[in-house]
């Protein structure tokens, strides 16, 4: 008998299989009335609630009118931190922006100083950013840089973790889906919190609104 059969036989001997339909219904019922067991949002508006949570975790957040204002905001951030050069995620929404004046590149060095990425969603409940792997979304972009700058479109903000779960399961699940909740950190030495363990020590989030700029 294979290990698989040994294990499944032992499992089924202890807990006989139920009707698949009934099991699915019971699983769905376990998620009824989600409000009764999740925390309220930190503020009534999604961007405000998200910002309160993310900043409490040590991220910095700024809001700009629209995507076109992103390069300017990034330039200010780089200058503030004395950074030159920026690795930009090869996502069309970012590469299509006007990067005049900033030395951008698309590769990632092992000790990349700063990188710019695009979040797929933001989750207001926890101040989390969602990134998915894909052809134009290297996962290491969120982990190698010391400064991780992320563009979050206000229209992609979701209230709760369950709302993201529903989005994830409705689409085809990517190889890697990550909820990023604050900059990297550790409490492994005497329980004291230190920022920037293996991942980014700085997380800067630029929330873009939908205002059109008059051309």
């Amino acid at each position, binding site marked *: 008998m294979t290990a698989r059969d040994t294990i*499944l036989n032992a499992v089924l001997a202890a807990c006989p299989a139920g009707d698949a339909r009934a099991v699915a219904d019971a699983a769905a019922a376990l998620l009824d009335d989600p409000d009764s067991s999740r925390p309220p949002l930190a503020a009534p508006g999604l961007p405000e609630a998200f910002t309160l949570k993310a900043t409490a975790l040590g991220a910095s957040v700024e809001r700009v009118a629209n995507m076109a204002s992103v390069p300017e905001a990034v330039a200010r951030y780089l200058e503030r931190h004395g950074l030159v050069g920026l690795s930009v995620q090869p996502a069309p929404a970012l590469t299509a922006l006007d990067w005049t004046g900033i030395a951008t590149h698309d590769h990632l060095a092992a000790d990349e100083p700063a990188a710019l990425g695009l979040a797929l969603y933001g989750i207001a409940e926890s101040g989390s950013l969602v990134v998915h*792997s894909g052809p134009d979304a290297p996962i290491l972009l969120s982990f190698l840089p010391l400064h991780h700058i992320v563009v979050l479109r206000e229209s992609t903000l979701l209230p709760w973790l369950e709302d993201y779960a529903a989005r994830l*399961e409705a689409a085809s699940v990517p190889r890697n889906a990550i*909820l990023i909740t604050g900059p990297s950190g550790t409490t492994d030495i005497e329980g004291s919190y230190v920022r920037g363990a293996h991942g980014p020590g700085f997380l800067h989030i630029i929330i873009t609104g939908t205002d059109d700029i008059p051309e």
Partner: protein
Amino acid sequence: MNVALPPFKERARAALADRTLKLAIDRTTGTAEAKRAAAVAAFPEFDAARARGRAIKDHVIANLGHYLEMFERNATASGAHVHWAVDDAEARAIVTRLCLDAKAKVVTRSKSMLGEEIGLPHALADAGIERVETDLAEHIIQLAGETPSHIIWPAMHRTREQVAELFNASHQPPPEADDPATMVQSARRVLREKFLGADVGISGANFLVADTGATCTVTNEGNAELTTTPPRVHIVTAGIEKIVPSTAHAMALLRILVRSATGGELTQYTTFHCGPKRPGDADGPEEMHIVLVDNGRTKMLAGEFREMLRCIRCGACMNHCVVYRQIGGHAYGGTYPGPMGSVLTPVLDGLAAARDLPNACTMNGRCAEVCPVGIPIPTLLRAWRRRSWRERLEPGALRAGIGLWAQVAYRPALYRLASRIGVRALRAFGRDGWIGSLPLAGGWTAYRDLPRPSGRTFMEQYRDQQKGRK
């Protein structure tokens, strides 16, 4: 896993005598306890969330076969290879063979207690493969040649000063100062070089999502992604009880897991891995393997320890345990320390080897109070004590003593007579209202004094009082 350790009592005595250890334990568990309390206070729905978490785990356990098959089907469809291991030896052999097949010279590992449970560190060393622990705490204990002393903070038995000594001896160049921030930077620099050159990355899983076939891992440092993304092969080892029906069920459990573990709302990184690199993907491993491990879990499912399968490994029970906080994790001698370890170690290492653990408990119930999935740990520990008695594992003198006591206790008149003599005799050893030493009871009185009894038994006083009422 633990060969030739001294008996539990000796280990506990040594731990109690180690003042530095006590300092280190207090620093981490104290912070953890305070942060959890704050997180729970800020989440009025916590009890409802706990009830939901418990119901989800019970539902999965009752339908485990259904969900395991569903997970296997979906993980396979995503391109992952699913392997099954009946015990630790089989799991070690599968992982080692996968590493050798990949011609791995260097393997990076992201913290996984299951990896410790199945003895992976030794197995990789025996196969001649260089293992790089990437979690900061695991890095510390790898340098020290130790095992984890806590399931969330594996290096919590080491003070900052002791960590500095280790880093000074092994980091090139050594860290410039011994504050945690500087030492973390030093580890970041040293390990960064290792991540990108590894052939295989091994991680664990907090959840296995049945309806997508994804594995879910929570970390704070970012080392998990750096471990699982660059190498050509990614291996996940996970216990079969880690299944959840869907991503939404995982989210419900994450809310209580992280608050109970660190007092945070979510860890910095919550990662779902689903199969190997897709065509066109910018990065990711070419192969993904998932090893599903039983190692005693189906035995628990069939018996009186089924409820323990709800455990989501948050560590709250040890942070709040008066015994753990005195002796730390290593004294327990198993892979899993503290209250949850005292239930699990007899399953994993056998009751004969671990029968002291269920007895090293005051039954104060703090663990069950804080457990996010409502595991009645004291009840389960009592079940081990009963079984230990049934299987006659207690030393002869203890069995004889308890047997004698039972004979007396079965006869109320005799029992009352014996206690009348007893309390009067005890009075004779009292000084200034306290008993500081007693013949044959040195093990007890060495650490504590007893109040000198009043000289009359409860029954005598009760009878007098009843008479007075009439």
